[in-house]
C-alpha cells in the first residue's frame, strides 16, 4: 500500500494556508444534508463536534462516560503550549516547531508539526474567548511557565487544572450546540464497531451502556477522537475506562495503525504501593520546575530522606544533563530514573521510586510562593499518601502515560479508510517518538477547532449528492451481528479468572518487555506470552451478568480482549525498529554512556501496520520521512 501523506505544496510556513485556500467547501444549504459521527468528547471530540454543529452539519456525539465533561482530557494538570512569545524570551512558531520535532526525535512530519505550532496561537485566543480562566499576572496579562524539554516559557496554565478548564470550554461549546439541536448527544454509549460500505466509513455500532441495547448509527463521515490507549499497561495515569477499542476495531476494518509501540512513560507519577492498585496518579511535570530529583548515593539506603546529607545524594538529572537538569525531556528523565532504580538505588517500601525534593525551592522562595504555585498538587499528594510534601520530599516513579502511536492519518487527519478521521491522542501525528509536555492538550484542541473543520468539509464536499446512509444496509446488519456474537462469546466462556487478572498480567508483560527499555529477545518472548495469555483469556475468563443490561465487567472484557491484540502489535512494532528513538529505547542500540542511538539511514520512517486477519503476522508499511527545513541532529540535553 502506498501511503500518501498529502502534504500541500509550498514552503513550510505556507503549506497550511495553501491547503485552506484550495480546500473544497460545502455550501451552508447542503450541510444540513450531511451527517457526521464524532466518537469521543475530550478536547478533540468536543471541539470538532461543536465546530461542525456551528457550521450546520448534523452531528452525533458519543462518549462512554455519563457526561461529555468527564473525558480524560479533564485530568491534564500542567498546561498547554503556545508560541505567543508573551514573555519576550525569544519564542516563535519556528522555535516551537524545532523543539517539538527535536523532542520527538525526528520521527514526525515536518509539515504537521509546523502547523500545530502555527495554530497554537489561535488556541489561546479561542480558549480565552470561551472564558477559560488561565493564570494571569498582576498586570492582568496571561502568565506562562516552562515545561520539560524546552528553554522558553510557553506553557499557559489554569492552576493545576488546565485540562479541566480547557475541556469545560470545549464542553460548553458542545452543549450550546446540543441545546440548539445541532448536535445529538449519546453519553454512556460505547463504539464497538465501524461500518464500512464500499470502502468508506459510513457508520458505527454502539452499545448503550445503561441498558445494553446495541444500536446502529449511520453518517457520511466518522471521526474518532477516542483518546490514548496507555491504560493497556493497567497501571497508568489514564482513567479506568480509557481504551484502544474504537481505534482497534477501525484498524481491523482496514485503517492502518502507526507506531503503536511509542508510549510515553511519565517520570513523575506516584509509585505503586501494592497489588490492589488500580492506577498511578500523575504529579504534574510542572513540579520539576522547582523540585529536584535525587536518590541516595548508597544502594539500599534506610535513613529518612531529610537525614541524608547533601553529599550522599545523587541529583542524577543535574549530573547527567547539566544544561536541562531536572527539566530534561520525559523519556530521558524516566529512563534515568529506571536506571537508578534498577541499579538498586530506588527508595520507598518497594524500592521503586525516586525523590522529588522542594526543600531548596521552599528555602529560596518561601513556603507561600510554593503553595501558590503547586498548592493543589501538594494537597493531592497528601490525600493519596498521607505525607506532607512541604516537609518531606515526594516519592515519584515512572508510569505509562501517553500514546504517541495511534491510527495513521494523512495531513488532513484522515486514516487510510476514506471518511474515517482520527483526532487527538487517537492518531499518531505530530509528536514523533516522544511528546513534549503540554503539547497534547494543544494537539487535541487544534485538531478539533482549527484543522478538522476544514479537512472534513473538504471530504464531505464529495458527498453532497449521496443522500442519507441507511442503517438497513447489509454491512450494518453484518457488523451488528458480529458485535452481538462477540459479546455473547465473552459471557459464554464463564471461566474462573476475572477480566482484571488478564489486564494486570498483560500490563506486567508490557512493562517488563515493551516499556522503558526493550530488547529483541524480550520482545519475542513477550509476543509468545501475550499469545498464550490471549488463548487462556478465551478459555478461562469469567464475565458475569448478561448482554442486555448494564454490565461493566462486559465492557472491561471487550476492552481487554482488544488490548490483548494491541499489545502483541506493540511488541512487533518495537521488534522491527532496530534503533532507539524517543520513548522507544532498544538496549542493543545505545551509545557508550547509555544514550539512545538513532539510525536515520534505515529507520527514518513511520511504521504503519495492516491487520492481517486473525491468522498471520501484521503487515508493515512505511511512510518515509523527509526533512527539508530541519536536518535531523542527535538530541542532546547535556
Amino acid at each position, binding site marked *: 500500500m502506498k501511503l500518501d501523506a498529502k502534504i500541500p505544496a509550498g514552503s513550510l510556513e505556507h503549506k497550511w494556508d495553501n491547503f485552506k485556500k484550495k480546500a473544497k467547501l460545502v455550501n451552508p444549504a447542503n450541510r444540513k444534508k450531511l451527517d457526521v459521527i464524532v466518537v469521543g468528547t475530550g478536547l478533540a471530540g468536543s471541539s470538532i463536534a461543536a465546530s461542525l454543529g456551528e457550521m450546520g452539519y448534523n452531528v452525533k456525539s458519543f462518549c462512554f*462516560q455519563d457526561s461529555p465533561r468527564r473525558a480524560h482530557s479533564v485530568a491534564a494538570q500542567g498546561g498547554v503550549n503556545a508560541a505567543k512569545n508573551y514573555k519576550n524570551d525569544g519564542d516563535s512558531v519556528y522555535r516551537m516547531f524545532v523543539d517539538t520535532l527535536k523532542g520527538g526525535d525526528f520521527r514526525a512530519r515536518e509539515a504537521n508539526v509546523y502547523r500545530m505550532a502555527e495554530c497554537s496561537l489561535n488556541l489561546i485566543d*479561542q480558549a480565552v*474567548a470561551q*472564558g477559560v*480562566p488561565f493564570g*494571569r499576572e498582576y498586570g*492582568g496579562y496571561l502568565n506562562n511557565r516552562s515545561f520539560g524539554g524546552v528553554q522558553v516559557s510557553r506553557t499557559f496554565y489554569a492552576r493545576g487544572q488546565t485540562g479541566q478548564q480547557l475541556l469545560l470550554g470545549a464542553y460548553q461549546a458542545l452543549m450550546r450546540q446540543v441545546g440548539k439541536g445541532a448536535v445529538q448527544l449519546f453519553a454512556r454509549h460505547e463504539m464497538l464497531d465501524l461500518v464500512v460500505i464500499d470502502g468508506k466509513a459510513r457508520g458505527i455500532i454502539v452499545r448503550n451502556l*445503561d441498558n445494553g441495547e446495541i444500536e446502529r448509527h449511520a453518517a457520511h463521515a466518522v471521526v474518532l477522537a477516542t483518546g490514548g490507549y496507555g491504560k493497556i499497561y493497567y497501571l497508568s495515569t489514564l482513567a479506568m475506562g480509557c481504551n484502544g477499542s474504537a481505534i482497534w476495531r477501525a484498524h481491523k476494518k482496514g485503517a492502518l495503525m502507526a507506531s503503536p509501540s511509542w508510549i510515553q512513560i511519565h517520570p513523575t507519577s506516584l509509585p505503586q504501593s501494592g497489588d490492589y492498585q*488500580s492506577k498511578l496518579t500523575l504529579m504534574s511535570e510542572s513540579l520539576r520546575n522547582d523540585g529536584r530529583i535525587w536518590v541516595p548515593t548508597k544502594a539500599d539506603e534506610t535513613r529518612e530522606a531529610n537525614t541524608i546529607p547533601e553529599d550522599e545524594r545523587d541529583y542524577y538529572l543535574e549530573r547527567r544533563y547539566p544544561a536541562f537538569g531536572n527539566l530534561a525531556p520525559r523519556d530521558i528523565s524516566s529512563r534515568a530514573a529506571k536506571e537508578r532504580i534498577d541499579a538498586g538505588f530506588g527508595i520507598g517500601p518497594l524500592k521503586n521510586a525516586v525523590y522529588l525534593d522542594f526543600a531548596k525551592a521552599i528555602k529560596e522562595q518561601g513556603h507561600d510562593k510554593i503553595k501558590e504555585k503547586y498548592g493543589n498538587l501538594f494537597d*493531592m499528594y497528601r490525600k493519596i499518601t498521607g505525607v506532607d510534601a512541604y516537609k518531606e520530599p515526594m516519592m515519584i516513579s515512572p508510569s505509562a502515560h501517553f500514546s504517541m502511536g495511534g491510527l495513521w492519518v494523512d495531513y488532513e487527519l484522515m486514516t487510510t479508510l476514506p471518511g474515517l478521521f482520527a483526532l487527538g491522542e487517537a492518531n499518531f501525528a505530530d509528536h514523533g517518538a516522544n511528546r513534549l509536555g503540554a503539547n497534547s492538550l494543544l494537539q487535541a484542541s487544534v485538531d478539533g477547532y482549527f484543522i478538522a473543520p476544514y479537512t472534513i468539509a473538504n471530504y464531505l464536499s464529495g458527498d453532497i449528492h449521496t443522500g442519507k446512509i441507511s442503517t438497513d444496509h447489509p454491512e450494518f446488519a453484518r457488523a451488528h451481528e458480529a458485535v452481538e456474537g462477540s459479546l455473547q462469546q465473552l459471557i459464554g466462556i464463564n471461566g474462573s479468572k476475572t477480566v482484571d487478572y488478564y489486564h494486570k498480567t498483560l500490563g506486567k508483560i508490557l512493562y517488563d518487555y515493551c516499556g522503558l527499555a526493550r530488547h529483541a529477545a524480550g520482545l519475542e518472548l513477550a509476543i509468545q506470552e501475550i499469545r498464550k495469555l490471549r488463548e487462556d483469556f478465551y478459555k478461562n475468563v469469567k464475565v458475569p451478568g448478561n448482554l442486555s443490561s448494564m454490565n461493566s465487567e462486559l465492557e472491561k472484557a471487550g476492552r481487554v480482549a482488544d488490548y490483548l491484540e494491541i499489545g502483541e502489535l506493540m511488541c512487533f512494532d518495537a521488534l522491527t525498529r532496530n534503533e532507539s528513538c524517543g520513548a522507544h529505547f532498544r538496549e542493543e542500540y545505545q551509545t557508550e554512556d547509555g544514550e539512545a542511538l538513532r539510525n536515520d539511514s534505515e529507520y527514518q520512517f513511520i511504521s504503519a501496520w495492516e491487520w492481517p486477519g486473525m491468522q498471520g503476522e501484521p503487515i508493515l508499511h512505511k511512510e518515509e520521512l523527509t526533512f527539508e527545513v530541519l536536518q535531523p541532529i542527535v538530541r542532546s540535553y547535556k
Partner: protein
Amino acid sequence: MKLNLKVWRQKDRNSQGQLVDYTLDHLNPHMSFLEMMDTLNETLILNGEEPVEFDHDCREGICGQCGMMINGIAHGPLENTTTCQLHLRSFQDNETIFIEPFRSAAFPVKRDLRVDRSAFDRIISSGGFVSTNTGQAPDAHSLPISHQLTEEAFDAAACIGCGACVATCKNGSAALFTSAKINHLVLLPQGKEERQERVINMVQQMDAEAFGHCSNTEACEVECPQGISVLNIARMNYEYNRALITRK
C-alpha cells in the same frame, strides 16, 4: 484490616433496592476506597454473583464521575475529597460502612450505586457558556483581566459536576452547581454580555428538572470536593433578580 459493608443493591431504575451485607478481610489501609470496591467485586465475580455497579473513571478527583453516600455523607468523611480520593486509613478496623447512591429526585438510580446526572448537562446546555463560535477570536492579550478576578472566576469554575451538593441537600437543590457556572462566567468580561439570558435560562432549566429549592442550609458547601462557596448562590440570586428587573 476488616470492614463490614452494607451496600445498596438495586437491579434497575424501576426495581426496589435494599442494603446487602458483605464482609471483607485482609484489606490494606493504603488502599483507596474504590480499590476496596474492586476487591469486593473480584470476590463477588469469583463467587458467581453480580458485582456492584458504581460510577468512577479518573480516580484522581477531577472527572466528577465517582460519588457515593458513605455512612450518610456524600463522598465520605473527609472534607473536600471525592470518593475516589478516599483511602481506607480514614476508617477503623472492623468498622461497619453504609454505602449508598447519591439520592435525589433529579438523580434516579440506574443500578446499584450508579445514578443519572444528565440533568446537569441540560442545565449547562440551557446557557452555561459564552456564545462565541470556534475558529476566530481576538488576541488573548487584547483583554487584560485582573489576577484577582481570574482567581475568583477560577474558584467557581473548579466545579467537577459530581452532584454531591444535590445529594447532600435535604431539598435536592442544584443551586451550588448552577450558581458556580453562572458566577464563573459573569465574573469575566467575556461572559458579561449574556448575563441576563444566561441566569434566567439556567435557573428556569434547574427548576424544570426535579431539583428542589435552596433554603440556605449550606450543607452543600461542606461536602463539595472543590470547596465551591455558597456565596455563589447568593450572587446567583442577585443576578437572577437583577435580570428579571432589567430584562427588556
